[in-house]
């Protein structure tokens, strides 16, 4: 299993860096043109752009986890916590200190890197499922900490913080949602580009060597402890930036946004997308937003459309989709598609 993932992961990185780069850029350009095409014709509503932005945001968050788990072999069940730290950093700075939204992003990034790095230090002693449990504890603790009485003066407790979406600058003929969609898209492209270059460098190869056999990697002179903590920090940074963007486009943060279900959702997104693949992060982001959020509505629609005699529970479709995906595409959708493409080409 480990070796095949490695091979696939490496192959995915290579493929992206070589032949398919052009396609990726074409896709980005089309996405960037959406506000002009879709917005003007009313084809995509403002709510639609919010949805697209959220997909991209979750893709960045999933990418953070993929760097950690897929490329460095460290498991985290607590990435929702870093998402929360990023979101609150941004929201509090905007709400309390009246910072412009863009200035809060680097602060959220640094904040999350530091938190992730510090958390990575003790995590070094924990391997595999122990690390998973430790990070899980973090995910469970964060919403409670945000509700803590003595933090209420800046977190606003259970009620959360309402912020207002920035208007587009320079009098651009775009709505707030469309503008923020473009901002989120640009940041995502930047962050994916950095991740790709990182993985394609010495550092990236060291990360993967540690994942595949940390003792062997150590013998070859890689500073395992250093790499592991730094990767933890970088991973937290990615997810934290996603959190900050989420706060800005969603205009609202509350402790309940960051329940441990969010950490699970990010993990499920990573696994479903493809745990060691950059395109997998994009698919994972879409999955988190669409399937997760609309499983309930979908369940209802199907129940009425097919006239099912029983009342399905809201999460039924989600569960079925997960089981089917894991059976048919054990390496995630990205891995499954790559395999399918290979077969089609071969035949």
């Amino acid at each position: 299993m480990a070796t095949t993932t490695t091979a696939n992961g490496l192959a995915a990185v290579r493929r992206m860096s070589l032949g398919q780069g052009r396609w990726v850029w074409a896709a980005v350009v089309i996405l960037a043109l959406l506000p002009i095409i879709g917005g003007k014709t009313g084809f995509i509503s403002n709510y639609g752009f919010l949805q697209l932005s959220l997909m991209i945001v979750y893709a960045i968050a999933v990418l953070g986890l993929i760097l950690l788990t897929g490329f460095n072999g460290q498991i985290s069940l607590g990435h929702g916590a870093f998402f929360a730290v990023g979101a609150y950093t941004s929201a509090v700075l905007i709400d309390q200190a009246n910072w412009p939204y863009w200035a809060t992003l680097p602060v959220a990034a640094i904040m999350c890197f530091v938190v992730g790095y510090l958390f990575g230090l003790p995590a070094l002693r924990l391997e595999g499922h122990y690390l998973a449990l430790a990070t899980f504890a973090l995910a469970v603790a964060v919403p409670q900490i945000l509700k803590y009485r003595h933090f209420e003066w800046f977190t606003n407790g259970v009620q959360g913080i309402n912020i207002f979406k920035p208007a587009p600058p320079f009098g651009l003929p775009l709505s707030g949602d469309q503008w923020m969609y473009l901002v989120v898209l640009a940041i995502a492209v930047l962050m994916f580009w950095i991740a790709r270059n990182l993985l394609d460098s010495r550092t990236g190869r060291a990360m993967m060597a540690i994942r595949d056999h940390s003792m062997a990697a150590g013998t070859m002179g890689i500073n395992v402890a250093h790499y592991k903590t730094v990767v933890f920090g970088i991973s937290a940074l990615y997810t934290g930036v996603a959190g900050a963007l989420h706060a800005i486009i969603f205009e609202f943060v509350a402790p309940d946004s960051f329940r441990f279900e969010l950490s699970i959702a990010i993990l499920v997104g990573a696994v479903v997308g493809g745990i060691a693949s950059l395109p997998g992060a994009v698919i994972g982001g879409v999955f988190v937003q669409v399937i997760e959020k609309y499983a309930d509505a979908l369940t209802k629609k199907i129940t009425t459309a097919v006239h099912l005699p029983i009342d399905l529970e809201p999460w039924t479709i989600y569960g079925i989709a997960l089981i089917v995906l894991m059976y048919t595409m054990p390496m995630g959708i990205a891995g499954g598609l790559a395999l399918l493409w290979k077969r089609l080409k071969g035949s």
Partner: protein
Amino acid sequence: MTQTTRRLLLAGTGALALALVASPVSAQKKYDEGATDTEIKIGNTNPYSGNLSAYGTIGKAIDAYLKMVNEQGGINGRKITFTSYDDGYAPPKTVEMVRKLVEEDKVLFVFNTLGTPPNSAIHKYMNAKQVPQLFVATGASKWGNPKEFPWTMGFQVDYVTEATVYAKHLLANVKDPKIAVLMQNDDYGKDYFNGFKQGLGKDADKLIVQLSTYEPTDPTVDSQMIQLKNSGANVFFNITTPKFAAQAIRKAAELGWKPAHYLNNVSASVATVMKPAGLENGQDILTAGYLKDPTNPLYANDKDFLEWKAFMQKYYPSGNLADGFNGYAYAVSTLLVHVLKQCGDDLTRTNIMKQAASVKGFQLPMVIEGIKVNTSATDFYPIQAVKMQRFKGESFEPFGEVISAEAQSQ
């Protein structure tokens, strides 16, 4: 000169007459997004999943009620499309679902969205968008603030009003009151406590000898109860949610403390509070309410109750007939339909708020007789009267007159 004036005058009168004739024609049908000649779109969020999914039955019962209305021909010939999403009582999900309702489903307004935290999360958004947030399902007092939030209106008796009633009742009935208060440390608890102090008047700080608080995450309130008993108080105001209410009632009995016990309506439930606390421990506890409890034998042959029961059996057969929330949904839906009928053919958002703010002396079904809905441009609290109730045997028995705290909004 005079000739011209007279002619001008004539022309003016003519024009005026024309305008008078013309205006009703142009004002005949007016719509905002979400309303047409055949349809009125209404949005809602409810917790159908999660810890508080017991509330979800309200959304289902409203849906059933509006189906009945549609079957009977709709409202002024228009059918209602009621879209209700699950928010699991999580404010972020509420924000997302309400944005979907307003921006994608294009509802005319949202109605009876449930819970104080979820409604707080969309409060500013609804008012910025100028879409009515009508008859919200929460008792916080902040929903009746038409000056700052003209697009939001509450429905049920707010906590402040209820607490004022307890204060007045105890001042009239308890000699030399020394009051102990147990309060959940959040917005809901503070709302009740502020209303209580208002009701006690300027001597409030002298009368309240002990205030103890707890966090919703605390395991028990035992130590607080010991503190309260030791204060030597002879009145106990119990501002707690069901789990803690049951604990407090049981602990008071264990300690042998028998004050005049006022329990907030939030926990006035036989099934979730009085039974777990032990029925014998809860005797003579006082509370106030405005709804008819469908399990109370007092209403077994009541006209409202029978009509509601028939409705439930026909349109919501899977609903629980012992669940007071279904009666609540029946009452609030009746008020909604009343307001929409009043709107006539002017289904603009402005007119909906205007009509919602001009209900006078309207008696809702499943609400205790004599408790009427009254609203005005400055009064955004529809129900502001309660009847005191005392726990006897296995149910709460209403007694005394309807106590009204009908007042202007702050």
